[in-house]
């Protein structure tokens, strides 16, 4: 049969091509590396077995998506090779049917792709059974895991991709069509994955590769048990996806079959009528035999000026050809438009729109090559594609022999391509700038800073773009085979983007890598620009060298063999080339040397592995001192000199240490700060340093005279910090020209062994021979309850000097401020003890002040509220003062007094939005001041709520400091949010509270596994910040807010800051138990002590009007309760719980739900049950647990519209 013959010929042809096997090798390597470099480590940390079905499925999905761009030439070649090699005049005229021709070629491409993708299971098997993976992270070998992944994920993906790529290539008659198709699928896969958590069902269908859904099972919504055991089967939306795309693929193939014509491309399609010239022969031409003018005698002039002229012309010509192609400017304009439209959605903090200040917009618009941000990945792919076109265009048109014989030097030929590509990139950046400006104008509320756009886009971002452009061009020139060139360039880009993951961290080793610059209005570029420039200069020198090499190897004829090209390159290596190379090499050595001096001599170059090794060594050497009795830090007195411009800080400190251990202490252990020099350590009695480990930061001083119980000791020290150039991560961002801040935790000595410096990850602990332990100490580990980092209560005083135009913020009352010798000094002292965590700030702030007076206390109980904010952003400071006042009001009433006389929010420069609540002074990231709650479509003021949350930390976390064990976050974060709810409710009304609750529920819409530890052992973000607060709120709705708050008040009173052992979530639970009536004890247990899920459904709801005008409502309810453990095992629990039932009147205009006609708790059992209620007015809707107090992830079926009953 003909189809068989065509299939066999194509299959054999491509099978014998080295590229086919190159693709196989690359995919194999990729699968291998993903397992060995990534999932094996996760498996060692105990997340899953390394050969769990989910790992196999995930690796398959990732490799499939990468294959889209790597192996696109297979389908493209099968579809378009005949036209491109001009063989179509033979094949098209052969007596073959279109079906056999297309079918044979398509099936061959599919078979070849399937063969290439067999590299995935091969790579997986190699990684798991040959690479030396330990047996204890391997589960039993299950062939079904490989088969399901290959036949349900890989093979369908291969078919859809082949069909799409083949169709595009066949219809465009260019193999490049296949590449563009592959790249588009690649981009779709990543984009859909990014938006998937919020996209719901359509997102799972939109991506033919099913990339996002597979990865989400891995990261979110499968429990550990499911990850290890569940096979990837064709079910649910995955099956729908497979069928949908099978249909679309077949439809596309049918369309291709109809549209494709076995005729010559020049005559086949859309030839504009009348455009075709009449053959020249038709015109009887006079033979100008010698009668015409003599041939022109003009000769060319040669020299540098001519070469520049040629450079300009060729660059412009190449640029213009690229720009006007469909994949040129039109595509870039569309991409810029998409980016512009994406700005509003991305310019948000916690879902709150930001004022579109230029620095934040630019942070979104830019990315370095080492950060694979979605649209920059597209840009990188396009750059590689453009480079291929520029290098190959002349050869593909057949013009190369004429052009190459022209007297144009190679450097002009190469440089003109680079300039053309550079020009395209400049246009792209201009489009991007327009997108940014348009987005800013559309959003409103911030001024567009054109100068900053220019600096950032055409100064900084352009360099990133040009470096990749040069790399891509050089690769294409050197490889000299278009598709392999694309592949090598892609691999090079992948290597750059994922170098850190592969363990190559030093930026001197990763092409184009540099520390990232930052620019915010508050701190400007700060010290980030200098290291950036050095690194980029270094890489630009490399790029120059690369350009020279590419010029030397520029192909100018038919000499494609390596030896011939080498010989030619040698011949081209003239004096000027040598000079340029020497300059490049000199710059590489010079800049590289300077960088190395900075990163490795001035700074300890510590890779991630070295950091781990250091932590491990610290534990191994010094953990023996964990329980050695140590004196307690009780007072801190500092003299700080900051020199922001010189980026230098000098600190003289004195600690007052008291022996309250009950035994005599003969030595003091000092944990010194990192990145600073600690000197002059002395005691007010003779002491000898018996151990000084500068590298690990541990010292032991033997006291000449032992310290008896209750005796005290004075420790003096000096700490010096001087920013030294830059490290591999860039310049230190602690001491800045404007916006300095540093903490005691990093710089100042701490007393005793510091468990927080230990290594936590299970895999790493094992690798360094440390005994296994959970990452966070168990709630039931009694010994661990004595420790919490930096939990001492101290009296604090400091005199701080800084530049005369800056303001210093430190904890306590500002006693005095003065100017001396051109510097400004501030004297701060606390009025009440604070926890041993404090920061110093120095910047040019604007200040917004407010006061709060305790209504039930005297006038001395006045608290000054100060917001130190970046000048120009007044709106949020006003909100913050109001919220802080309301918070102080509520918390002092509910939980106990606020011990300090100030409460401050201090801005810290940066792109973040978070806050950190140290005692008195709360650090607020610059982005927080840009949040614009007025524009929030949720009608919700997150700024006010977050401020209330941070103020609550002055109680939860600063007064009540929990032990560093599981569930600590329940005491700090959950209680802070729960407290903030009270503020919001009392001060801003229940509607505001409803919106806050709904904000806290948003996270539930993200699919996630139900497997978790009970709340009392909470360690993850979701439990601490979202589930915990709602559980506390639910309890307050059942037992009453006052009783819960009373329990919290007792908790605070019973655990004063210095008492040991430190409080845990069990203490909180005990207080809540005391406050909860017996009938609700089971609920308390279910909320906190078990990971409980309710499944509440209203099956039917009918109503009938009674004779007296009231309505009788009849409900059928179904209820179930489950407990899920941390592995994901689900256990049914008998239910006998009080659940709220609500009946609601019709909703008013603009409301979601009407006024409640009935709201009562009923005792609900497991299973189906019916209820009869009587309500005064006509009911519209009923809700089973309408306020969603119980944990039920599917709340839609809780509600039912009431049907009239006959």
């Amino acid at each position: 049969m003909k189809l068989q013959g065509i299939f066999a010929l194509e299959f054999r042809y491509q099978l014998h091509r080295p590229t086919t096997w190159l693709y196989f090798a690359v995919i194999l390597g990729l699968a291998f590396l993903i397992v060995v470099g990534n999932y094996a480590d996760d498996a060692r940390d105990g997340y899953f077995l390394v050969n769990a079905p989910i790992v196999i499925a995930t690796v398959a999905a990732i490799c499939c998506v990468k294959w889209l761009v790597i192996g696109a030439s297979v389908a493209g070649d099968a579809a378009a090779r005949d036209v491109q090699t001009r063989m179509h005049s033979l094949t098209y005229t052969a007596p073959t049917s279109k079906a056999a021709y297309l079918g044979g070629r398509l099936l061959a491409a599919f078979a070849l792709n399937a063969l290439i993708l067999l590299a995935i299971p091969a790579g997986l098997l190699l990684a798991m059974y040959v690479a030396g993976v330990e047996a204890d992270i391997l589960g039993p070998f299950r062939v079904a895991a490989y088969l399901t992944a290959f036949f349900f994920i890989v093979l369908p993906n291969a078919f859809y991709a082949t069909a799409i790529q083949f169709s595009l290539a066949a219809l465009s008659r260019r193999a490049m069509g296949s590449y563009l198709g592959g790249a588009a699928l690649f981009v779709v896969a990543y984009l859909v994955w990014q938006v998937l958590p919020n996209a719901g069902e359509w997102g799972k269908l939109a991506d033919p590769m099913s990339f996002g859904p597979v990865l989400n099972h891995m990261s979110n919504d499968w429990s550990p048990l499911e990850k290890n055991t569940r096979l990837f089967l064709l079910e649910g939306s995955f099956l729908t996806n497979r069928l949908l795309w099978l249909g679309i693929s077949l439809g596309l193939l049918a369309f291709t079959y109809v549209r494709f014509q076995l005729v010559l491309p020049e005559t086949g399609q859309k030839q504009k009528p009348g455009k075709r010239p009449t053959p020249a022969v038709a015109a009887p031409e006079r033979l100008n035999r010698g009668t015409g003018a003599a041939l022109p005698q003009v000769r060319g002039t040669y020299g540098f000026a001519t070469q520049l002229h040629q450079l300009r012309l060729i660059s412009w010509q190449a640029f213009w050809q690229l720009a006007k192609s469909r994949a040129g400017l039109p595509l870039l304009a569309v991409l810029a438009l998409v980016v512009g439209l994406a700005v509003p959605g991305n310019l948000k903090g916690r879902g709150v729109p930001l004022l579109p200040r230029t620095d934040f917009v630019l942070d979104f618009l830019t990315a370095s090559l080492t950060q694979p941000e979605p649209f920059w990945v597209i840009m990188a792919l396009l750059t590689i594609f453009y480079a291929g076109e520029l290098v190959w265009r002349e050869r593909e048109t057949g013009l190369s022999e004429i052009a190459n014989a022209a007297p144009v030097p190679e450097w002009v030929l190469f440089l003109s391509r680079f300039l053309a590509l550079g020009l395209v990139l400049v246009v792209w950046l201009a489009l991007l700038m327009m997108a940014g400006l348009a987005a800013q104008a559309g959003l409103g509320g911030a001024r567009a800073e054109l100068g900053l756009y220019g600096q950032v886009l055409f100064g900084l971002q352009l360099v990133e773009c040009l470096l990749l452009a040069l790399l891509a061009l050089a690769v294409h020139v050197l490889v000299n085979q278009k598709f392999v060139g694309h592949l090598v360039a892609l691999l090079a880009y992948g290597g750059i983007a994922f170098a850190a993951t592969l363990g190559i961290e030093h930026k001197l080793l990763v092409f184009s890598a540099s520390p990232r610059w930052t620019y915010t209005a508050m701190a400007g570029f700060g010290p980030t620009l200098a290291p950036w420039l050095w690194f980029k200069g270094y890489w630009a020198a490399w790029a120059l060298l690369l350009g020279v090499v590419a010029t030397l190897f520029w192909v100018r004829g038919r000499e494609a063999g390596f030896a011939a090209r080498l010989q030619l390159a040698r011949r081209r290596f003239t004096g000027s080339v040598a000079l340029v190379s020497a300059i490049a090499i000199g710059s590489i050595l010079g800049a590289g040397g300077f960088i190395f001096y900075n990163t490795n001599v001035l700074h300890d170059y510590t890779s991630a592995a070295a950091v781990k090794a250091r932590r491990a060594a610290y534990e191994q050497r010094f953990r023996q001192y964990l329980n050695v009795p140590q004196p307690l830090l009780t007072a801190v007195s500092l003299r700080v000199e900051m020199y922001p411009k010189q980026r230098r800080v000098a600190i003289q400190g004195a600690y007052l240490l008291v022996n309250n251990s009950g035994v005599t202490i003969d030595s003091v252990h000092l944990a010194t700060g990192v990145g600073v020099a600690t000197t002059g350590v002395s005691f007010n009695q003779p002491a000898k340093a018996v151990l000084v480990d500068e590298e690990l930061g541990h010292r032991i001083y033997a006291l000449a005279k032992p310290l008896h119980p209750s005796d005290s000791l004075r420790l003096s020290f000096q700490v010096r910090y001087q920013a030294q150039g830059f490290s591999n991560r860039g310049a230190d961002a602690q001491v800045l020209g404007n916006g300095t801040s540093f903490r005691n935790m990093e710089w100042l000595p701490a007393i005793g062994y510091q468990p927080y410096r230990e290594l936590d990850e299970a895999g790493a602990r094992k690798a360094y021979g440390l005994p296994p332990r959970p990452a966070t100490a168990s709630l039931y580990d009694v010994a661990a309850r004595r420790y919490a980092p930096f939990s001492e209560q101290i009296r604090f005083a400091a005199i701080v000097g800084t530049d005369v135009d800056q303001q210093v913020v430190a904890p306590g009352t500002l006693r005095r401020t003065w100017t001396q010798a051109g510097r400004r000094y501030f004297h701060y002292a606390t009025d009440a003890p604070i926890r041993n965590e404090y920061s110093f700030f120095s910047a040019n702030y604007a200040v917004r002040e407010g006061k709060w007076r305790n209504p039930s206390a005297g006038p001395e109980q006045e608290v000054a509220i100060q917001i130190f904010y970046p000048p120009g952003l007044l709106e949020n400071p006003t909100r913050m003062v109001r919220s802080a006042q309301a918070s102080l009001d509520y918390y002092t009433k509910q939980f106990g007094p606020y011990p300090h006389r100030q409460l401050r929010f201090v801005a810290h420069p940066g792109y973040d939005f978070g806050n950190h609540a140290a005692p008195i002074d709360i650090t607020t990231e610059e982005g927080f001041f840009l949040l614009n709650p007025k524009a929030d479509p949720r009608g919700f003021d997150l700024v006010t709520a977050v401020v209330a949350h941070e103020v609550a930390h002055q109680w939860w976390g600063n007064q009540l400091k929990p032990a560093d064990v599981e569930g600590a976050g329940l005491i700090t974060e959950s209680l802070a949010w729960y407290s903030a709810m009270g503020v919001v409710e009392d001060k801003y009304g229940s509607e505001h509270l409803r919106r806050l609750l709904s904000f806290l529920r948003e996270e539930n819409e993200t699919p996630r596994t139900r497997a978790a530890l009970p709340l009392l052992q909470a360690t993850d973000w979701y439990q601490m910040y979202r589930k915990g607060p709602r559980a506390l709120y639910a309890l307050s709705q059942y037992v009453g807010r006052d009783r819960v708050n009373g329990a919290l008040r007792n908790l605070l009173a019973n655990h004063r800051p210095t008492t040991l052992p430190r409080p845990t979530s069990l203490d909180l639970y005990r207080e809540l138990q005391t406050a909860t009536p017996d009938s609700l004890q089971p609920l308390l247990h279910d909320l906190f002590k078990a990971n409980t899920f309710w499944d509440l459904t209203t099956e039917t709801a009918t109503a009938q009007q009674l004779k007296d005008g009231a309505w009788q409502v009849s409900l059928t309810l179904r209820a179930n309760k489950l407990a899920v453990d941390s592995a994901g095992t689900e256990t049914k629990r008998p239910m006998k719980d009080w659940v709220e039932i609500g009946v609601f009147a019709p909703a008013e205009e603009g409301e979601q739900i009407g006024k409640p006609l009935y709201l009562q708790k009923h005792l609900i059992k497991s299973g189906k049950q019916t209820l009869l209620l009587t309500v005064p007015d006509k009911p519209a809707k009923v809700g089973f647990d309408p306020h969603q107090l119980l944990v039920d992830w599917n709340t839609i079926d809780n509600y039912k519209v009431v049907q009239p009953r006959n």
Partner: protein
Amino acid sequence: MGNHPFGLTIRNVSKRYANGVQALNNISLDIPPGMYGLLGPNGAGKSTLMRTLATLQEPDEGQLFLGDLDVVNQKEAVRQTLGYLPQEFGVYPKASAEELLDYFAVLKGITNRTLRRATTEALLKQTNLWDKRKQKLGGYSGGMRQRFGVAVALLGNPRLLIVDEPTAGLDPAERVRFLNLLSELGENSVVILSTHIVEDVAELCTNMAIINKGQILLEAQPLAAVAALKGRIWRKLTDKNALPALEREHQVISAKLLSGRTMVRVYSPERPGNGFEPVEPDLEDAYFSTMTGCFGQTSQQQKAEGIVL
């Protein structure tokens, strides 16, 4: 012939491709200014030699000189006086002849705008493309495209013009026009015309070489070569099936079908007898005699040896 100041000297040039084909085998030629024909069958090595002369390929061994320029080591200088029309070439289909010619004029170093305009205008007129200069090259016929190629090759008044099989796809009228154009080239330029069409050489070239399987079989002036064959070419009209027998007995150099019968031409210093009649030799006879090995440098040598014997 000696080393002419503007002539082309090729010395012991060899080239073997990676696939083992010996494209050029120790070739030496002296090419004086004027038209020079390089005649040979397809695959003889003509294009390899042409591309080597056009600086697009490197010989494995040997040297090539244009005047005193070393073609291998002074490529840039050679390109400045080179015009090259490859056997096959494409164009940017969306560019007009005028635009693309202007582009190439800059590549050829004509940077002065006025001069360039004058040059391109003259060349477009010369190649009869002036009326079609605004038309997109994608719509050009084969002959027009070929003439456009000539215009490009003639830019900058080259001292070395290499035209590789230029008449291959041309209709007779185009071909005539094309050859006329070539013949107008300056006397100081070396014009190398590679072709497998004997008439091209016969009509135009003052010197020629016949090349096959990478070797030069004959280096001669066409008229002299034809004259040397005088009295040695005989023809006979015969049946097709008599051909094998004739081939055994005689040096058959060509056999053409002529209205159902076969016209056989043989090479023979004496009258071969039985039905053969003498014919006036033409260049085609010289070509075929050379190809079949009865005429040319090697065969003359053999003959000399034969006389000794």
